[in-house]
């Protein structure tokens, strides 16, 4: 056959089908989920992430951290499906603050099952519709199953289930009891809970300080500023403090107004005597500004902007504590909220009602010579968790664990809880299979596949803790068929137990978001039939494939 002027129709078109694009999508999705799956659960592996220039590294078992730091130079991560997976992890974290790994693993498993169905000859649209149906049904089921949290003990279990997936204390006495991280998290939640019984995890301020031991981590009612006082001779502590939080510099030179760095106003001194009088009048001006604050009864002044050095000694003499340069406006707002103060930027109109109250304000010195100022407030809804620990990397990992646990616990506190350890998944899978039988159309197969995919959670838990996956799943199925719906896999004890007694509890909100996110992302990938690459990208991939 003679070649056409544009040789694309006869040969290339036949060879390249959308099936091949789909195969590539599915394989990348699955591979991605497999990669991350070893970090699920209490007995999970850690991953070390090293930046390409080897200057920076992180060790973590937190799914989101791994995915975000995932070096995107790799071909696989440049693949659009990989990018979708990273986005899924990010959005799950933004929304509920936990459950990133589970959502990615579930999405990968859904893709695995979808691929099988499409190979059987099902149209992708039907698979996607079936998954949507199954998700709705699963969420309906889990909402029915969920129980409200009534006791502190239960909250403690929720916090521990979340913490266990990222950090396990070597000593059993630190796992439970009053000094444990879980109880720290729970008490923080109790402090920030309002009268209506809702807690916002963002109200909890986490401060990291290396040194000491993880078990020295404390929860503190109030706020900790990572700053020193302005002058060393200021009182080291101030009981019954009245705090003025200001957002304006206490200086003669200002950021705006006429006395700025490059202003048109210049003050010129013609001789030494004039210079001195000028100095003293500057001093007077400064003092006048400050006097207004002191007059309304404040004995602690905290400013986001700078405070003139000359004021330090004078304030110290009057027994007033001053702290300058709080880093960000969020910090300032949080601090003001913590002590019930109103932020003032016009000193001329300050009054006593703008002041906040604290039971105690004091400085604490740490062995590495850094100084933090603690503000103890008992009557406001703000908590600070002071994380301690040996090395910086350990603390950052614990920080992530505590952050996730705070969100999950708050979600549980505000809403309902479900059993963990795969018990809920097994129950929903069982019910979904039954539900599938009531559907006449081809969607039945997709719903069944969704049910099978859910079992990946207990499977992965079993695999990561070194157990035989098949026997764990068969045993679990057997228990569930007997109607023991609370049975799940305890990855720490490595046994199948009644999770309601063992205390493996997760929050409903988190789980719902995991199902929704995973199903949405997998549907998007199932329904994609083409990847359109740019010139450069295409060339690069070809080189990669050829092994150049």
């Amino acid at each position: 056959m003679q070649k056409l002027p544009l040789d694309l129709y006869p040969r290339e078109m036949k060879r390249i089908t959308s099936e091949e694009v789909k195969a590539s999508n599915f394989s990348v999705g699955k591979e991605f989920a497999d990669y991350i799956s070893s970090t699920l659960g209490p007995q999970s592996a850690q991953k070390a992430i090293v930046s390409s220039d080897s200057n920076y590294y992180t060790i973590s078992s937190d799914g989101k951290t791994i995915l975000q730091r995932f070096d995107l130079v790799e071909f696989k991560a440049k693949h659009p499906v990989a990018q979708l997976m990273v986005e899924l992890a990010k959005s799950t974290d933004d929304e509920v603050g936990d459950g990133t790994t589970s959502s990615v693993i579930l999405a990968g498993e859904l893709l695995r099952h979808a691929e099988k169905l499409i190979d059987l000859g099902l149209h992708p649209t039907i698979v996607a519709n079936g998954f949507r149906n199954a998700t709705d049904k699963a969420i309906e089921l889990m909402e029915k199953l969920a129980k409200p949290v009534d006791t502190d003990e239960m909250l403690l279990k929720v916090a521990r289930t979340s913490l266990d997936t990222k950090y396990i204390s070597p000593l059993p006495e630190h796992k439970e009891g009053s000094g444990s991280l879980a109880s720290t998290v729970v008490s923080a939640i109790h402090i920030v809970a309002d009268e209506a019984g809702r807690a916002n995890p963002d109200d909890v301020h986490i401060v990291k300080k290396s040194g000491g031991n993880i078990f020295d981590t404390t929860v503190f009612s109030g706020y900790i500023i990572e700053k020193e006082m302005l002058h060393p001779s200021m009182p080291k502590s101030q009981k019954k403090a009245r705090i003025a939080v200001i957002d304006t510099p206490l200086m003669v030179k200002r950021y705006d107004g006429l006395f700025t760095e490059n202003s048109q106003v210049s003050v010129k001194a013609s001789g030494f005597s004039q210079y001195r009088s000028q100095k003293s009048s500057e001093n007077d001006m400064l003092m006048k500004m400050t006097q207004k604050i002191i007059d309304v009864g404040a004995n602690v002044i905290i400013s986001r902007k700078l405070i003139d050095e000359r004021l330090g000694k004078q304030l110290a003499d009057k027994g007033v504590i001053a702290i300058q340069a709080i880093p960000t406006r969020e910090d300032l707002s949080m601090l003001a909220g913590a002590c019930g103060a109103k932020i003032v930027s016009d000193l001329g109109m300050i009054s006593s009602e703008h002041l906040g109250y604290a039971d105690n304000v004091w400085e604490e010195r740490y062995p590495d010579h850094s100084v933090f100022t603690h503000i103890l407030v008992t009557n406001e809804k703000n908590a600070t968790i002071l994380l301690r620990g040996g090395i910086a990397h350990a603390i950052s990992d614990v920080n992530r664990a505590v952050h996730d646990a705070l969100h999950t616990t708050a979600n549980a506190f505000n809403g309902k809880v479900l059993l963990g350890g795969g018990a809920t998944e097994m129950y929903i899978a069982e019910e979904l299979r039954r539900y599938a039988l009531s559907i006449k159309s081809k969607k039945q197969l997709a719903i069944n596949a969704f049910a099978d995919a859910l079992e990946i959670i207990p499977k992965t838990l079993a695999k990561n803790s070194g157990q035989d996956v098949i026997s764990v799943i068969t045993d679990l199925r057997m228990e569930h068929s007997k109607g023991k719906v609370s049975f799940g896999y305890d990855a720490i004890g490595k046994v199948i137990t009644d999770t309601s007694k063992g205390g493996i509890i997760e929050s409903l909100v988190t789980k719902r978001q995991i199902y929704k996110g995973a199903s949405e992302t997998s549907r998007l990938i199932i329904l994609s039939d083409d990847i359109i690459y740019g010139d450069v990208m295409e060339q690069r991939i070809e080189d990669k494939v050829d092994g150049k």
Partner: protein
Amino acid sequence: MASSRNRFNSLRRSTTSIAKRRLIGEDARESCITTSITLCDGVKSTLGPSGMYKMMTEEARHFDITKDGASVITGLIVKHPAARLIVETAKAIEDETGDGTTSTIVLAGDLIKRADRLIGDGLHPVVVVEGYKLAARKAIEIASELAIKIEGDDSDNMLTKVAKTSLKGCGGDKLSSQVVRAVRLLDGDKDLDYVSFEASEGQEFEDTDLIEGSILHNWTPPGSVKRMEDAKICVILNPIKLERAGYLSDINVSSSDMESHYNKEEEILRELVDKVRESGANVLISIQDIDVRAQGMLAMHGIMYLHKISKFDYVRHLCLSTGANVVPNIWNLKPEDLGEARLVEERKISEEELIFIEGGSNPKACTFFIRAGTPKVIKEHKRNINSAIHSVSNAIIDPYVLPGGGAIEVELAARLKKYAISIETKEQLAIMAFAEALEVIAKTLAQNSGLDVIDTIVDLRARHQSDKNIGVCIGEDESIVGNTLAAGIIDPLRVRTQMLSGAVEVSELILLADGILQDKLRDSKEEERKQKKVSNEKRMEELKEMM
């Protein structure tokens, strides 16, 4: 990894080969036709509510996933002139009607495919094009006859259905009626840009809402009130501070005057703030900075204030939605310059502060606040809502609608076939081909929904004998065809006529091309120029030496 290559890429690769040759006559037409068919077939799978997604990834721009055919085709970087022509036409249609681009391209592809066969049979391309034009004219005539007028009390209901059809099943009744409401708010203003989109990750798409006002990406300074009901808004252009660039005079202050000068400054600021209070405003929006001291004074008086608005687009939108006028300077502030809003509030949504300004008395601009899981999904929803807005706007401008789901196309096909027989010239064949090509819409819809294409089209043809509103519509009882008009799947007439005429235009341009002349590539041109320059310099030197 052979799978990563696909039809578009192969298209692009082979188009580079034309650079080196000049094609004329049959070869050129063949080349153009093959290219356009490949391109048009590529977007086929995105048509309809159960269309497929396409992932687009390009070195120079962000990765995108979409099932909006127009975005796919306008986003392509192609080299072949025929392909570029189609991309440009798609852009033009997208700008003009904003909806129905995919069906235009799909129809054009099928028209070209059938024309190819006719030309192969010995028909002259000009005759084919003439026939197509005749057919399109007749089709538009028939469509206008069949169209149903939207009027009276039912019009909002009908428009909601139009919106719902265009949303491709991504939104429910709530969103559809909000789309209609948004277009109505613009009050006949054709500039649909005043329906703006803001989005935030998190929650679900069902939580997407129409804000009859504006959303600013900004935050209130720490001292300000975070919420103001029954807001009176003033918008100030100049910075509210004393330091000014561009003043001629310096002020010299002696040390004794320093404090009085300082107080004087405060006094000026206080006067400014008093001026704001006198005008009755309780929300001050300054496009530039506000002095810290002035901020404090505003806070004391309980006035909510915002400063440093990053984009002027926000300000324009804000002025339209609240009715405020931008005032250059506070000294000129008058009560009639103030805008109104029921509520101004700062909300923190997924780690980001947004200022909501809602419920003006007579808003002329509005904002869709889209919520969805991930940024890609948000972008996709935004495109969907945008095309629904255009669709509704089309239906308001030209208040006639047609049954969707391929129903009108199948009906037109049936009538055109009858019309074709009445034509005695060679154009008859082309009209016949046009009629058959129209059925591609219904076929593609069926294919994308996972139905049997042959079964569906045969069924449709048979049932169109008695009912002209039968189209592809998957009912709750798993039936595959049904009365689309009753099911609420309707399209504006304007979008359909645009489809018919647009597709004919595209096929005309492609079919009548009989030569591709390629200029030399830019690189080789540069090379030539350089060589010329060098040789010139050499000659100059030689001349100098000779002198």
